[in-house]
């Protein structure tokens, strides 16, 4: 192994600039002549706009211009994925205006932009705008939204976006009728706010000399924004629209989507002929960043007399919020229901999903997107089924795992898993978590008055998103390939242009390791360039743990082309046949001889082609590749959580969190562990702390860090993490993806541990987040119920 190659914990190339305050985030950029935009947002959840009086605001100091929906007549913000109803008809897809067109549909909906010489002036002027709102009842509650007479969109009767299904309902029902045991649960997957630490920001700029627009934005995928905003909203052709996503301070899904503010500042910059910077304050982020999760599900698992799972059926309502955000529609369907086999051999599965409009912020992908929801309901059901049938948590899982020799394994819900070894992962996790010693630890805790519990979760997810042919057949309106360009410079240094975007994942290091390993050159000689549509040919961006499995593979493919061309050059110089050239450790050798040429010499020769045969060999050394995966990748693992509960206060302390994950080949173990840590923290956050709450009027009650509980250092333990490895069989690196596993696997492990701790007190279930008040209520409710019996 090269010490900067595959498998090495190379320290990150990007860290120096971040540690010295030299990162360049969108809000750090200032353009000549820049103005500042403030977005006036709706204070009410649902209202008609009968009029907007701008007179006073327009006269306020520093104001350059004010625009409302009347001014901004542009295309609707598109949804990227069409989902069909079970009868085959298309989903209901109401318009999604950048600035409100006569109606507002959630608190935070964009009503106007005020552009001024300073941010303070823009904000002050916005307070002078008089909007005549005619308030309407709000549809704020997911569970009852379908029954409300109030419609979020007149175009969507019953507030239904789609009524979708997978599987044969009648066949699954028949299995349930003959089942030996049925475990049944009502499950809520709580609504979350992603809360990347960098609030969103955007700078729009227009160059009247060239007719070119530039948008600097906090995005995980600048090309996707260029496509969606350019082609659908503003009708700006690609060659006149540059989108730059510079350093981005975390995304977790929330910065995938094309947001209204991006279109507003880009469009308005052309009107005022000056750059416009907009940045969200955190309270604005809560009201305008897409939220995540938010499902209610009725789920049932059927078992035979041997404890084998024979059927699963789920009926899910998924909140879309007020408008369809970019990937919102595929999250509860193709990223959720298709995962319901989990790591088990359940032969028959049915899932119905009703997507619902409400007067709340749009809901879309958040770290894991659909897969945490699937894992949570499945692992809660399995945990309960074990308790009801008298099996241990380990036994019920082992009995139902897809066996190691069954891969490739076709599930009944569309996916074909390529590889995995779930028993091995469980074995290692149980060992690392010291499950054998748990009873002793529980007794010791009891002596201190604490209730100690242990919870399991064994999961599989689908990532490396995604094979274009498959997602295209399922309604995706884009391909999900990735591009890479390798530019070898004359002195042998390399710049890689990748369509993946790094916003914390460390691509500048991991991708450079691929190049260092492949070309045998020092990692210092490799730079990774990303995030600018004028530099990178094309890109679908970073989400769904796809960067290495798709973006990395594109790099590998381009590297293959570089090596192939380099062999031709070496063959020419060494006067051999290129088929006889071998490449190893950065050297091209004529097989069986000592004639060799270093990579750097090949690079120089490529640019000094004094005697190239021009009909056979072009000068230069630069190669482009596009990679479209054959299949999803399937990371899997086992998370085991141990908690202690203080029955007096209901406080749950996570005393141990063990994650054993199979993410395929690991390129940089340090970075992979870091990704898993971060996912675990978000998973524990979902399980115990975080939850977006609306009141009946559609006001967000958790609109700042005063009320939305973010995990802090003292809320979390040190994590015990490890990896097992089965290689992905359909990509050259054998990689599967690691960005989401922590957030997917951990929430049910935590809740299963809480339920385990409380089971003997009579508690049977507890919803996320299991806050101190909620746990205390559950304990008291159970006490009351037991006393009544």
């Amino acid at each position, binding site marked *: 192994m090269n010490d900067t190659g595959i498998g090495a914990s190379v320290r990150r190339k990007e860290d120096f600039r971040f540690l010295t305050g030299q990162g360049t985030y969108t809000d750090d950029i200032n353009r000549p002549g820049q103005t500042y935009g403030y977005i006036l947002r709706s204070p009410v959840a649902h209202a008609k706009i009968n009029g907007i009086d701008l007179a006073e605001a327009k006269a306020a100091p520093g104001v350059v211009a004010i625009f409302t929906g009347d001014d901004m007549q542009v295309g609707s913000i598109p949804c990227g994925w069409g989902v069909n109803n079970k009868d085959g008809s298309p989903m209901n897809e109401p318009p999604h205006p950048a600035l409100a067109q006569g109606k507002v549909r959630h608190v935070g909906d964009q009503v106007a932009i005020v552009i001024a010489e300073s941010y*303070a002036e823009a904000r*002050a002027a916005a*307070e002078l705008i008089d909007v005549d709102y005619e308030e309407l009842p709000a549809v704020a509650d997911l569970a009852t939204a379908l029954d409300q007479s109030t419609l979020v969109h007149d175009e969507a009767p019953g507030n239904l976006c789609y009524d979708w299904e997978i599987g044969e309902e009648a066949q699954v029902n028949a299995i349930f009728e003959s089942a030996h045991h049925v475990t049944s649960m009502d499950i809520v997957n709580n609504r979350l706010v992603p809360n990347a630490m960098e609030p969103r920001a955007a700078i729009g700029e227009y160059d009247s000399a060239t007719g070119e627009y530039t948008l600097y934005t906090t995005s995980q995928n600048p090309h996707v924004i260029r496509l969606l905003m350019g082609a659908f909203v503003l009708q700006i052709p690609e060659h006149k629209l540059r989108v730059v996503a510079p350093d981005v301070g975390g995304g977790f899904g929330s910065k995938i989507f094309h947001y209204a503010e991006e279109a507003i500042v880009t469009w308005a910059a052309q009107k005022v002929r000056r750059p416009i910077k907009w940045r969200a304050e955190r*309270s604005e982020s809560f009201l305008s960043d897409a939220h995540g999760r938010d499902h209610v599900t009725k789920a049932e698992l059927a078992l035979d007399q041997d404890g084998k799972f024979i059927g699963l059926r789920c009926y899910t309502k998924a909140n879309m919020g007020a408008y369809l955000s970019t990937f919102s529609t595929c999250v509860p369907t193709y990223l959720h229901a298709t995962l319901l086999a989990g790591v088990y051999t359940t032969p028959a599965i049915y899932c119905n999903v009703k997507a619902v409009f409400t007067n709340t912020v749009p809901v879309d992908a958040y770290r894991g997107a659909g897969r945490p929801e699937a894992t949570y309901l499945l692992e809660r059901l399995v945990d309960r089924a074990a308790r009801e049938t008298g099996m241990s948590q380990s036994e019920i899982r082992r009995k139902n795992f897809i066996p190691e020799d069954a891969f490739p394994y076709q599930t009944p819900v569309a996916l074909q898993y390529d590889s995995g070894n779930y028993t091995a992962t469980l074995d290692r996790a149980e060992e690392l978590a010291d499950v054998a010693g748990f009873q002793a630890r529980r007794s010791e805790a009891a002596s201190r008055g604490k209730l100690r519990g242990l919870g399991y979760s064994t999961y599989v997810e689908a990532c490396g998103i995604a094979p274009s042919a498959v997602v295209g057949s399922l309604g995706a309106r884009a391909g999900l390939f990735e591009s890479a360009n390798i530019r070898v410079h004359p002195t042998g240094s390399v710049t890689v242009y990748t369509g993946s975007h790094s916003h914390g994942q460390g691509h500048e290091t991991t991708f450079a390791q691929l190049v260092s390993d492949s070309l045998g050159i020092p990692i210092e000689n490799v730079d990774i360039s990303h995030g600018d549509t004028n530099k990178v040919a094309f890109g679908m961006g970073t989400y769904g743990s796809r960067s290495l499995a798709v973006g990395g593979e594109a790099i590998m493919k381009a590297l293959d082309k570089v090596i192939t061309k380099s062999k031709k050059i070496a063959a020419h110089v060494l006067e051999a046949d290129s088929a006889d050239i071998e490449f190893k450790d950065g050297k091209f050798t004529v097989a069986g001889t000592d004639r060799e040429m270093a990579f750097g010499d090949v690079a120089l020769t490529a640019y000094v082609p004094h005697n190239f045969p021009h009909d056979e060999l072009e000068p230069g050394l630069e190669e482009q590749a596009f990679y479209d995966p054959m299949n999803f990748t399937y990371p899997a693992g086992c998370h085991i959580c141990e908690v202690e509960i203080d029955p*007096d*206060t*209901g406080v749950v302390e996570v005393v141990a969190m063990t994650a054993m994950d199979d993410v395929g080949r690991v390129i940089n173990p340090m970075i992979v562990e870091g990704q898993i840590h971060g996912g675990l923290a978000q998973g524990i956050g979902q399980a115990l*702390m975080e939850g977006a*709450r609306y009141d009946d009027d559609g006001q967000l*009650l*958790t609109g700042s*860090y*005063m*009320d*939305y*509980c*973010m995990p802090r250092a003292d*809320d979390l333990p040190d994590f015990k993490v490890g990896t097992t490895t089965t290689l992905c069989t359909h990509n050259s690196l054998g990689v599967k993806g690691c960005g989401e596993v922590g957030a997917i696997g951990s929430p049910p492990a935590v809740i299963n541990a809480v339920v385990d701790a409380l089971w003997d007190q009579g508690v049977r279930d507890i919803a996320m987040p299991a*806050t*101190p*008040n909620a746990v*205390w*209520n559950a304990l008291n409710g159970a006490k009351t119920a037991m006393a009544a019996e």
Partner: protein
Amino acid sequence: MYEFNYHKASSVSDAEQALRNASDGKIVAGGQTLLPTLKQRLASPSDLIDLGGCSELCGISVDGDTVTIGAMTTHAMVANSAEVQSAIPALAGLASNIGDAQVRNLGTIGGSIANNDPAADYPAACLGLGAVIVTDKREIVADDFFTGLFETALDEHEIITAIRFPKPEKACYQKFPNPASRYALVGVMVAKMSSGVRVAVTGAGADGVFRVDAFESALDGSFSASSLDIEMVHLPDLLEDIHGSPGYRENLIRVMGKRAVEACG
């Protein structure tokens, strides 16, 4: 933030004068609550009068059985003061858990008390220990000082200069933080004074900090945790929010109260 005029006062009388001259003046001490309020445009004072230059308001002195803390003394100074740690460890402990390290470096005892946030810690210390709030005009006993949510007995142009704490026989403050904001969801100060036991609760009351008479008389009878297994009669209305129902807060008053008694030894 709305615009305002800024004055850096050099003395209390200078500040008082500036306050009188302003149409709607506001004192800024450490600013750790006021500035977030201004940033959210929830207040729009015409003038901000900064006490940061009034060095006479900063400092801690112990005289016999009394600890006097200047109004501009930061939470960090109280927490780290050897005198306070020795005279009233419960007070130093309370200060060491207010906000976070950065808030403690700027936030002041005078600012906290003048603001009287229903979830702030210091009001429980003042009321629980029976402190005297000293202003540029008079002295106000804590029982008369805290008059409601964000309301105090301070007159319009009155400035807190110091807080005098009598030394308790023993005392302990137990805080149950709001998981999100880290303010007190319930904080209970139990103090055994020469005059009897005082129990003050912050975070829970719909009208701010209050005393729990039932607990005080029970502890006067027997200073042990089990004495608190009684009904809390005459409790004021308790706050209700997404972090704690009134019932949960009532439970926490008892649990934190007992823990405070136990920690008193």
